[in-house]
């Protein structure tokens, strides 16, 4: 028995995946095929992104035909107020929507994890419904709803582009944050909260110093995911936007129809860098909080 364990340990060191006992048999043709396939698929996943990054250095007039290498596209961003405005609208609404989603989602997630009951199933059902409803349905539903609230009922704020966009992208994000926060707290012991209460902490103090502190990594991850999701929101935004507050993805969508220019790739490259930074922060936060690679994958895929 101990010999086997030792051999396994050696094998494990040489080849991290270690299953079975014969290393040569392990490198069979199926494994080679799987390796090749995995690499190919990852290249496939990156193909259009690499193309966009390369084409952001296109000096030509149209995005599709590469003319010559240069930084004209990046310079154009500085000269075009419409592009800057679109990016600004996107960043502002994504921030507001992420704040809304994180607040609502964190409270709901804590409630689901710590105060379970029959209502949790109803609430999870609603969240599921929110996440599986096609975006186009959300979009066509919110448009008449905002028109009704803003014009028929005369609630002026629903005629404002920023309000509409922030609300529109907060729905799915709220569901995602709720899932993540709940998942984190369900895995944690509730004894700490009881201990805190036993030590005469007031409920509010317990909530702030214990429950919220335990949930914090998930809250941060949820916030950044909500921000990225809202930044990406295209379909709902295209419907509820008001002229003057066109967010970046909708600007791009209209450019698809009227003609794509290299500055779109240039802004996308900058946004890609921002997304990478946000993802890296999420990964570091979750890793610090002791999540394994699998847990991170689960969190990032939205619960």
């Amino acid at each position, binding site marked *: 028995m101990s010999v086997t364990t030792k051999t396994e340990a050696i094998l494990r060191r040489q080849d991290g995946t270690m299953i079975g006992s014969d290393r040569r048999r392990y490198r069979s043709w199926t494994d080679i095929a799987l390796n090749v396939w995995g690499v190919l698929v990852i290249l496939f996943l990156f193909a259009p992104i690499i193309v966009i990054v390369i084409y952001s250095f296109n000096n030509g007039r149209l995005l599709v035909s590469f003319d010559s290498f240069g930084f004209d596209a990046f310079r154009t961003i500085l000269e075009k107020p419409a592009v800057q405005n679109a990016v600004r609208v996107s960043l502002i609404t994504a921030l507001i929507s992420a704040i809304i989603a994180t607040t609502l989602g964190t409270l709901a997630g804590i409630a689901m994890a710590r105060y379970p009951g029959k209502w949790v199933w109803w609430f999870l059902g609603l969240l599921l419904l929110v996440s599986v409803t096609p975006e186009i349905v959300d979009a*066509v539903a919110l448009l008449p709803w905002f028109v009704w609230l803003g014009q028929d009922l005369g609630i002026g704020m629903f005629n404002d582009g920023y309000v509409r966009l922030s609300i529109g992208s907060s729905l799915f994000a709220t569901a995602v944050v709720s899932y993540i926060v709940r998942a984190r707290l369900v895995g944690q012991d509730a004894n700490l909260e009881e201990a805190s209460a036993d030590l005469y902490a007031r409920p509010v103090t317990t909530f702030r110093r214990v429950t919220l502190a335990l949930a914090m990594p998930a809250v941060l991850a949820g916030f950044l995911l909500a921000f990225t999701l809202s930044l990406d929101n295209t379909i709902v935004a295209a419907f509820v936007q008001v002229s003057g507050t066109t967010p970046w993805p909708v600007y791009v969508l209209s450019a698809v129809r009227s003609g794509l220019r290299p500055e779109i790739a240039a802004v996308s490259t900058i946004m890609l860098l921002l997304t990478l930074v946000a993802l890296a922060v999420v990964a570091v936060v979750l890793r610090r909080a002791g999540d394994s690679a699998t847990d991170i994958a689960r969190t990032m895929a939205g619960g």
Partner: protein
Amino acid sequence: MPRRSAGAALAVPAWAWLAVFFVAPVAMVVWFSFGYKPGIFGTHANDILSLDRYIEALSPTFFATFLNTLWVGVVGTVLCFLIGAPVAYWMAFKVRPQRRGLLIALVLIPFWTNFLVRTIGWQVIIAPEGWLSTALQSAGILNGPLDLLYTRAAVLLGVTYNYLPLMILPLFVAFDRVGPALREASKDLGAGKVTTFFRVTLPLSRPGVIAGVLLVFIPLMGDYITATVLGGAKGNMVGQLVASQFQTAQNWALGSAMAVVLMLVIALSIGVAALLLWLVALPFRSRTRLVLGPAAGGPSTGSGTGAATEVSA
């Protein structure tokens, strides 16, 4: 600690928010779908209720688009599974654990890159005047420019690409949960690789398979962007149909009916798929059932013998 009812009140803001900005608007769309378009300038009216808009939404012209969408949805989901399952398997079992984090990041980065921008990337790649077309022509594989953009095949490529990470991630999580113990046991008992995969790994990762299929199929059916960027007139999907009723034709009643039909089609196809799966699995049920004890490591006597008998059978 607050009492249970007080604690559950923490969820009230989220309830209210989703009720006002999700449930109510969708209910409004369902209500609109029973109405009609009153004139050139009106968008909807509900003084006479009927099911006429549904009949209109399923008239031959629109029905073809529904069929096309369903075709793209089913084929796209199957392609995602066939492409994604080996990758998830590779990540879960064949890659060194230290490298896993990196691979997950590599799958996640495309997933978190702007959907529209990724799709535009494909438009650049497969454009008739793009570099792929030029390369294929100079290699002598193609005689004329690449004729892929604005076809149904281009939409299929786009949706398969766009939703692939949503298949890989849940499958990876599910495979990873199966762990090496049962797979090794299966191999020790003489099962080959293929048998182990189909009789042990795949059945145990069923929740992941179901999650992956749903995560891909549902948004795919409602896709609007991929079809708009890559599909053109030939690759029309229901999402565009709904959008055009609201934006161009200004017929909110018909658009609403189409949106409701879309949701029903999605729900119905999932139901049919579940039923088919159940029927197919029925004859195998008694033979492939694997009963595990309270802990995977130490099964109780009864289920232990059960499992042993079943594997040897």
